[in-house]
């Protein structure tokens, strides 16, 4: 009986654990403005919450001359983006559509500090 209980539990715990974790460990795609609003409403004790923004690159960091990428989100809003993650396999060229993960640095000149990039 003990064996049956423990084996059954072992079989059940892992998939249930993964299912529950998936409910707590996913990130919705947002716009830059939405990420700004979320960052502004978070408490000061935390870093601004992470956000996933799908973008189209307008100007590369080199082209913009500011060291920052200029990107456009799904609502067409342009914003500055600093990417400090590891070098992606495909170059981040003008016109490329990718998804960036990072957080908003708010203030007079807000920008998105991305640390991960995905296709």
């Amino acid at each position, binding site marked *: *009986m*003990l*064996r049956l*209980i*423990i084996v059954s*539990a*072992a079989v059940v*715990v*892992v998939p249930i*654990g*993964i299912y*529950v*974790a998936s*409910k*707590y*460990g*996913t*990130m919705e795609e947002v716009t830059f403005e939405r990420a700004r609003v979320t960052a502004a409403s978070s*408490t*000061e*004790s935390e870093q601004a919450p*992470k956000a*996933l923004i799908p973008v189209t690159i307008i100007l590369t960091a080199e082209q913009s001359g500011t060291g920052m990428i200029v990107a456009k989100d799904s609502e067409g809003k342009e914003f500055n983006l600093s990417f400090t993650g590891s070098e992606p396999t495909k170059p981040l060229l003008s016109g490329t559509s990718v*998804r960036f*993960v990072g957080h908003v640095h708010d203030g007079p000149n807000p920008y998105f500090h991305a*640390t*991960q990039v*995905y296709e």
Partner: protein
Amino acid sequence: MIAQILIHMFLGCAVSSTVLYAMGSRGNANALKVARGIFSALALILLASSTILITLILSHDFRYTYVQSYSSADLPTHLLIASFYSGQEGSFLLWTLLVAGIGVILAPYARRFGYEGAAMSFYSLILVFLGLLLVAKNPFAYVWQTYAADGIQETFVPEKGRGLNPLLHNAWITIHPPILFTGFASMSVSFVFAMAGLVKREYHRWIDVALPWTLAATGILGFGIMLGGFWAYETLGWGGFWGWDPVENSSLIPWLVSVALVHTMLVQKRTRGLVKTNMVLAVAAFVMVLYSTFLTRSGVLGDTSVHSFVDPGKFAFWILLAFMVTFVAIGVYLVVIRSRDMNIAREDFTPTTREFMLAIGSALIMASAVLVTIGTSWPVLLEIIGQPKVAVATTFYDNVHLILVPLVFVVNGLSLLLQWRSSPLAVIRRRLAVAAVATAACTAVTVVLGVHKPEMIVLAAAAWFSLVINAQHMWSFITKSAAMLGAYVSHLGFALLMFGVIATSGYTVVHHAVLPQGVPTAVGDYTLTFAGKEQVEKQFRDREKFRYAVSIARGSDSTTVFPVLYYSDFNQRQSAFLEPGIRWGMIRDLYISPKATEMEDVYKKTTVQRGASIKMPFDTTITLQLERFSMPTTEEPAPDGRMRMSALVQVESFGVRADSILRVPTRISQTSTGMAFDPEWTAIPGTQWGIGLVKIVRDNENVDQSTADFVFRDMGKPLPTPKETFTVEFSEKPLIGLVWIGVVTMVAGFAFSIARYARQAAQRSTLLVSTESPHSGQQTIKANTANLHPNES
């Protein structure tokens, strides 16, 4: 150079002792003798290497990358010593040193039980991998070696060290990591005894040998985890004692597996059941140490943890992976090939026995370990399937444990109500009724005291159930045999810990407060007053560290706490370093976590564009025209070395232009948020007024668009002191002391049990030594077990 050679010598010795101990386990007495000598030598080599590293740090030898990266000349001695293990390389060295040190004690202990060859060969293999990590992450690399690609020459010696992260500048850095690493290091002992048991086909005896060590490892690691939580709460200003961060979880997971192992070992010791389970758990406990190390030190978590180590490089990554895979493979291989043997004494437990409940309890603890592992590994799992790497929200851990922890308490209580082997139903009913009534009464009191959330009531009821039954048992044993108290004391501590968690996580009241200096501000039931600040630790030149005096008053009761907020060059002043101010209390802690500080603007600024004119605010008969700016290259630097710029202003009084242009200088320094301007007050000729330049906004494309911000004051009056506003998070944390008391009680319980089982193991080893044949040992041990206390084993 010598130290680098020593690291390679250590690796050679570890490989040799692995091979020689393995030969010794096959009966080669000479090999065993040589292995002992080599093992002692490797421990001495590590001691020498560690002494060299400490000496290099204490003598500020910045030729070495590690010394330059983690220490500086202005650190006090205790922090210099802590620099030893503050980086990835040094912490590997400390871990290796502790494993070797424990090995020196372990070898003669294992010899007494006839396990030396087998156990120490596995133990030495662990040191081989640690040695490889030390070669990959060598703390004795020179700066010129590390940065050879940047063209750094051999003769280059950095002038100063980067220093230790200011967050680590406190006494806890000298206590917490060594204890935690001792826990990590000692977790390998039960693994090597289990492997030795499998090699020698001694599936029961290894339990007696390994149990005191498993208890010690669990107790030490638990204590180390608690110290980390206390450090986070008391000094780091994180607001809580546990944040479910991957680095915290990486210690918790092996601890949970080890707790489950302790309980299943006790079942096997008593019933000879769960043989395979114990082997698997002994492997799992050690492998989880390796897996957690891999997660937090290989860089796979990326930025999803606030304090995991940075990417160690590909070589170290693959060694960490090989380390883990090798020991999983060894464990799985030995368990599988001995699987048939181990089923010889297989028996099933009936649900109304203590052993059944202990097994269920261990399964629940393992479920907790599995779920924490899934949560911690989540970013890696997402990356494998090509999704953005995101950590699970901490509520995942909270919510799964709101189900698991009450079950663990109930099963713990039931296991103690039941007897070994069989329990008459009448006895069970009577004991259960008493415990249920006491639990109901205590839970009712808890509700009356203010615990109203349903999930917290369930958790409290379960904790009371366990506490009541453990207290009953403690009471019955306290006069008979204090040595038997260990388990009950530990369980009691766990219940107390959980009451602290219920109170502090469910009922902490948090207020956000903005405190202008000198102004009493009502915050909840309290009045908070920010009285002023004082600079401390002036010896450090990378920071101006201030402690802020905040008085907390309610009625006639008043106290002052001193939270700390400062910026440091260590992180280019990008974010503030914070330390909380705490008023410790029996019922509640009052906790002030600093958030931000802002200086009041005492002067009204007036912005002027280049070429434009303004009327002076205090005297409209005076007109000022901003002619242009001087360049820093044409200005003498300020006496303190700061760069200078000036605004050149044409003054006009009653329509009459002054003969000369007025030069208004300012001192400029670079900060993380841009340029900071410190005005040099300049008297406007013929008036009592002074002018200061507090900002220049330069437009390089169109210089006429450049602007300056000016401030004005009466030069006959002293400079007004600007007032500061201090923003804080003020919390009342009820009964948080129970968390610390609970953990200390748990650890004390482990200490009782270690003493008890070490004594039993010593008795058995004495009997084993007195018998010539190892085969007769089993018989002798059985005879000895019969002489133990009827409730022992």
